[in-house]
């Protein structure tokens, strides 16, 4: 028993309507690097939030045993006091403060009269930086160093808190190969110093390189824990995806016509870090009546591809050509993209898709006001009629179209977004995570709508991080990894294992 630094016993966490974690068990041995694997939404982050006290004791069931003692964390400070530090995927550093200031934020080095002793803080910071192998002056501002180095500052900060168990959530997702290697070496180096790490990662080669054991979580349940000697990519992938795919998707008989959209050599760079290629020479096509999927892990560049294509809404130094039905078109502004028959339903409905303080009617008409207007004046009654027709045909559950979209459920909000784009009468619809945050019944309805649109002869591109969804509704699937198309599979040849292999394929740069 004593060799386990951490045991999480029968953790169950429910959110209204959803069981995020169900009877999850995790055992981490002292001094090991323990990897946690699972698809997006499997419950990895929730589990780590339970562990670090973000979800306080009492909001979940089950016990956490840390260093042979049952612990009840009320907030993140409690867990840090015990030596559990979590480093989130989105780094929590303040860009305008120096490295030393960030390391000792809310943990300041006090001198006389309770004032901060900056000399001491900076020299302590320098020692910590040496431990993580970062050669930077502690007074350098965070925004002047790259993401890789920022990650190291986060670890230095953790060390300053006398960390015993370090949790890293997808630490290499935003890093290049060199920085990733350095980070992985550092984790192994810390292991020699007796620091236990939990690393959440999608990257199988990474896991094989550093993990002593791997726990796989799927649908909020622990599947198994595999020791290093037994780890194979095949076994992990099978554990991650193996689930029943039957009856979740409506039947779909494709009637595929001519090519409607072709994208050639589409490339986009990161808006701030302009030398970083985020979308790398993407080539793809869609035919009339076809549902094409884009599979990719978080950070693969799926949304970035779609948004850069749709009116250059993301990125800089965008290049590439777009052809509609064989003729070259431009999509330099959103307006131009819409006029050329493209539509893009965003991944994040609330942030980017809807005006939540406005009613259903005005949200639906937003992208096509010119259709409803004569002489610059909108015909209110016609607008009402149109919106009401969509309310009925897409089964938006609201008493009338004057209801504010902020009051609708996720599924109904998504139907409003779809109505907006269907009303703009596009030839190609790009749907980014069309069923994220939607319950199962509404998902089925959304799939039915997608099928109907394809049957009408539109070309559909579905971006999703849920492989079963892509396999359930698409006719053909592209895999995207690190901004590149790494493969294309017709639905007959597609299966989760093959896709995951392509999605995790690393392409030499």
């Amino acid at each position: 028993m004593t060799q386990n630094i951490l045991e999480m016993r029968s953790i169950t966490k429910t959110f209204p309507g959803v069981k995020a974690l169900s009877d999850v068990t995790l055992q981490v041995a002292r001094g090991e690097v323990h990897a946690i694997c699972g698809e997006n939404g499997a419950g990895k982050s929730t589990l780590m939030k339970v562990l670090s006290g973000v979800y306080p004791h009492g909001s979940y069931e089950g016990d956490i045993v840390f260093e042979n003692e049952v612990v009840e964390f009320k907030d993140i400070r409690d867990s840090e006091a015990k030596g559990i530090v979590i480093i989130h995927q989105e780094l929590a550093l303040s860009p305008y403060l120096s490295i030393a200031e960030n390391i000792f934020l809310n943990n300041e080095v006090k001198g006389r009269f309770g004032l901060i002793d900056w000399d001491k803080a900076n020299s302590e910071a320098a020692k910590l930086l040496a431990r993580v192998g970062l050669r930077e002056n502690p007074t350098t501002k965070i925004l002047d160093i790259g993401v890789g180095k920022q990650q190291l500052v986060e670890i230095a900060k953790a060390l300053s808190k006398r960390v015993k168990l370090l949790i890293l959530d997808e630490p290499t997702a935003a890093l290049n190969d060199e920085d990733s290697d350095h980070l992985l070496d550092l984790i192994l180096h810390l292991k020699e110093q007796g620091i236990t790490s939990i690393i959440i990662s999608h990257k199988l080669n990474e896991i094989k390189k550093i993990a002593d054991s791997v726990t796989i979580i799927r649908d909020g349940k622990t599947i198994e824990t595999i020791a290093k000697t037994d780890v194979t990519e095949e076994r992990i992938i099978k554990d991650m995806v193996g689930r029943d795919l039957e009856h979740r998707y409506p039947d779909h008989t494709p009637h595929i016509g001519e090519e409607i959209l072709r994208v050639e050599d589409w490339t986009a760079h990161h808006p701030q870090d302009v030398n970083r290629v985020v979308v790398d020479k993407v080539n793809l096509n869609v035919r009339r009546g076809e549902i094409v999927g884009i599979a990719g892990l978080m950070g693969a560049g799926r949304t970035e591809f779609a948004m850069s294509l749709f009116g250059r809404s993301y990125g800089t130094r965008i290049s590439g050509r777009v052809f509609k039905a064989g003729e070259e078109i431009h999509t330099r502004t959103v307006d131009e993209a819409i006029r050329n028959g493209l539509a893009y339903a965003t991944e994040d409905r609330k942030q980017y898709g809807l005006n939540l303080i406005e009613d259903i009617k005005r949200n639906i008409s937003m992208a096509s006001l010119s259709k409803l207007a004569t002489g610059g004046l909108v015909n209110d009654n016609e607008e009402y009629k149109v919106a009401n027709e969509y309310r009925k045909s897409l089964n938006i559950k609201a008493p009338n179209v004057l209801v504010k979209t902020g009051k609708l459920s996720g599924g109904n909000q998504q139907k409003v977004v779809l109505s907006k784009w269907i009303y703009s009468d596009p030839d190609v619809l790009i749907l980014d995570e069309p069923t994220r945050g939607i319950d199962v019944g509404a998902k089925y309805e959304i799939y039915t709508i997608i099928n109907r649109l394809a049957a009408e002869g539109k070309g559909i591109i579905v971006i999703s991080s849920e492989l079963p969804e892509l396999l359930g509704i698409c006719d053909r699937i592209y895999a995207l990894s690190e901004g590149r198309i790494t493969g294309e599979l017709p639905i007959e040849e597609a299966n989760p294992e093959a896709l995951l292999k392509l999605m995790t394929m690393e392409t030499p740069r």
Partner: protein
Amino acid sequence: MTDTSTKQPGAASRASSTLSHIVSDLGKNGIFIALIAVVVLFSILTQGILLRPQNISNLIVQNGYILILAIGMVMVIVAGHIDLSVGSVAAFIGAVSGVFAVKMGLPWWLAIILSLAIGALVGAWQGFWIAYIGIPAFIVTLAGMLIFRGLALVVLGNANIGSFPEQYRALGNGFLTDVFGDFAIDPLTMGVGVLAVIGFVVQQVRTRRGRQSYGQDVEPMGWFVAKIVLLTAGVLAFAYALASFKGIPITLIILAVLVMVYGIVTNRSVFGRHIYAIGGNRHAAELSGVKTRQVDFWIFVNMGFLAALAGLVFTARLNLAGPKAGDGFELEAISAAFIGGAAVQGGVGTIGGAIIGGLIIGVLNNGMSILGIGIEWQQAVKGLVLLFAVAFDVFNKRRAGGA
């Protein structure tokens, strides 16, 4: 889902539907009721002086320029911006118009047109920095507040400009009166009042018919008629007050035209819809093809134009372009918009609300002045009214369960 409009309501449910319409209308028009309350309060406190014909006429003329600014300001605020420069711009344009009309002796109409054009240019200058360079409107217009106050002084050259041509002065203190001869009750004013009522009723009935023909839910007939009767009585009483004084102020005509035009722009035009869309969710608007920068730019061009018009009306009223003109106008206009229900985060606000907000401030100013309350307490009271109005709004929204 059953369609509510096809149900056959019983007498009881019809009564409750009427009641719910009244309650929801009262909720939506809380600010209108607040105006009536303020008017009633000060009528009592001033023993009726507030509602004397001459004072009613004064209320319009004295607050005309604030109301003009409030119209532009509410559009700026709905789009999620702010404009602190309008007072300075009004002063600057007043000075410029003085140079045109008095010093250079240009025809009054040409002076007015040129001044308005320069106002629009000032707006274009600020709009450029805000929309295309991406500097927050707060900063750009704070700078504009200093720049145009300075330029006003430069144009005036440390002296006032007075003795404007009569037609120019009419903008601020002219009246449309005695066109049909001298009567105790001006027939033209009453005629216009009656025409306004007829126009209003016809428009209301047409809207109602249009909605019905599209199968939309409309308010119960009784409440519909009651509302029209109440408003008709109000408009006619107002017209009667003006008719028994000097007739229709030119400022009121300008205001009426602006309210109608901008009412249509904000409610029904594609441009107006885009303003609300941007204020509600800028990203979503952008990704729906709204040219957000272009819309931002034109909002500020429009604000510059209206600030210029307010400057002309104010200068005309005083018959003087001075360095202190327009001092604090921006704050009154912003207060009017917020009291009138505009949301600080943008996306919400109406022309009608801003006008009523402006009138509340106007009645407070006027009423307290009649009572002989000092300027220091007037300021404090207005500040409190602004604070409570917005607090009430926030409270209301929170109770309604979020934005």
